[in-house]
């Protein structure tokens, strides 16, 4: 790149919106006062209407801690992340959280993992895996799960222990690899749910591989 400055390049419209030529404010100042008052009035009405829409009719935002930014944002304006004009990268659009584990058939050593999937732009959840040698994991539903903004879904994942000897019983950060897909293509995201998942998974492993089921005919 060298020392030459690239001032001739178009500057990004958000991070550095000020330009050398007359900006919006300069053009605004050049307008007659009457016209400016009219535009201001219309803008205020439009804002109130937008606010009313937000209160009355807008679908609920996805469950994200950043759903309502309190400070104005720089690279994007407030609210832009809620309804982006273009599909977001699947990894950015998805919010997947762990709900719980339910033990299933003890003899067959099965259990289900409950997930909560929300999205800021439409996407499909096509595959779930956990790469342990002694465990087989997959989506309970026959096809992909579609998730839309404001329409969070419960996702059920089935798991079957295939070899008790090949399970890590004390791993600290187990994770699920979730394949997400939208117009930008498929993307595999590791979802590391944290301590609650770790404890629940360890409990499931210990219970289903414990001595009470050790002599079952299906013991691997």
């Amino acid at each position, binding site marked *: 790149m060298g020392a030459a400055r690239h001032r001739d390049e178009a500057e990004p419209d958000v991070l550095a919106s000020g330009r050398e030529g007359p900006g919006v*404010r300069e053009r605004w100042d050049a307008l007659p006062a009457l016209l400016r008052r009219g535009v201001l009035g219309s803008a205020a009405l439009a804002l109130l209407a937008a606010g009313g829409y937000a209160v009355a009719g807008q679908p609920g935002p996805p469950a994200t801690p950043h759903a309502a930014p309190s400070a104005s944002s720089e690279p994007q304006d407030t609210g832009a992340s809620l309804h*982006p004009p273009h599909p977001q990268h699947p990894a950015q659009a998805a919010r997947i959280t762990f709900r719980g584990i339910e033990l299933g058939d003890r003899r067959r050593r099965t259990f289900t993992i409950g997930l909560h999937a929300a999205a800021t732009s439409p996407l499909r959840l096509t595959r779930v895996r956990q790469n342990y040698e002694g465990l087989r994991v997959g989506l309970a539903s026959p096809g992909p799960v579609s998730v839309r903004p404001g329409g969070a879904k419960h996702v059920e994942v089935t798991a079957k222990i295939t070899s008790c000897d090949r399970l890590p019983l004390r791993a*600290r950060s187990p994770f699920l690899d979730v394949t997400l897909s939208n117009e930008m293509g498929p993307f595999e995201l590791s979802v590391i749910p944290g301590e609650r998942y770790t404890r629940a998974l360890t409990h499931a492993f210990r219970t289903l591989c414990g001595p009470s089921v050790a002599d079952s005919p299906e013991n691997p």
Partner: protein
Amino acid sequence: MRHRSLLILTTAVAAGSLTLTACGSRGDNSGGGSSGDTKTLTIGLDAPLTGDLSALGQGIKNSADLAVKTANKKKTVEGVTFKLEALDDAGQPASGQTNATKFVADQKVVGAVGPLNSNVGQSMQKVFDKAGMVEVSPANTAPELTQGTAWRSGKKERPFKTYFRTSTTDAIQGPYAAQYMYNEKKLKKVYVIDDKKTYGKGLAATFRDEFEKLGGKVVGTDHVDPKEKDFNAVANKVAKAKPDFVYYGGEYPAGAPLADQAKKAGLKGPVVGGDALFSAEYVKLAKKNSEGDIASSVGAPLESLDSAKTFMKAYKAAGYKLPYEAYGGYAYDATWAIIQAVKAVAEKNDGKLPGDMNETREQVAEAMQDVKFDGVSGAVGFDEYGDTTNKQLSLYEVKDGKHTPVKTGTFKD
């Protein structure tokens, strides 16, 4: 739900009010909110601007500079002009502490961005906390900085209310890499090396702990002096132990020659490490022997973030000589977080900052806890420990001389 809807309404109207105010204030030629005063506030920056880690430090400095320039251009805080003052810590804790002392003694400094190294961060935290001045690191990853020394046992306690960071901790980096190497790469024997520093030692320990719990075998351990460049003795020990791979807890200036020498000595597998290996400098130093090596790093790959694309374009347009490197986006966000906190304080005080700088600093540190915005690295905000709420991390493998993303995860801690 009602509460949220009202918040949306408030936000929409507030955003609109700001736009209208900005349009209307031009005519009266006042640059300073309701009082008409213009105030210059300095944001301090501490990073290694010279020495082995200067590539990362310069990227941090330039990115913070871009944030300051953007805020000034856009008049993000009416009546306030920001200035960046960068000091070099050369990666040394003592220098970092001296710089922190300089910043707090300067009555124009409102907050500080930095540092890069966790051990430098440790040496600065107390100085800033005593002065009630906010410090936002774009790169410190040692968990104890925010969660206290007993974090591993689950007893998390925030040591300093004034310390925040936009990068994620390395509490997950080590275990994530361990899971990947053991379960996906199916490599089960590792040789673990660290540089005895806060960051390197901690990272190697979290990796080793998880790898062993998964069933992996540690065939050898060692420490290196990161000031050295000759690691042949360790490299020969590694080759003799025949591990499937090496995990190195440390930074690229030592990590790269170590990888190069270990492979020359006979190591067949990759060298794996944390975010301090995620630098183009690593590839430059280890050359062909960096191929296949893996580094974890904070956040999602920048190419997956629309906001980051805007940042990359702006950075290029600004004409900085050196790249933004691994922490540039996080430094931009750290600086922007301080600017947003200043803005929140001004708004709370009817558009005017308190006359007393100590009071301003305290209010800015308090406001930082609630700062939220869509930044370069994604949604920026802080949890009760001062850690970023954007908890993502990625693994990169060197392919054809370039770090290429191979896996991204999102976590809850």
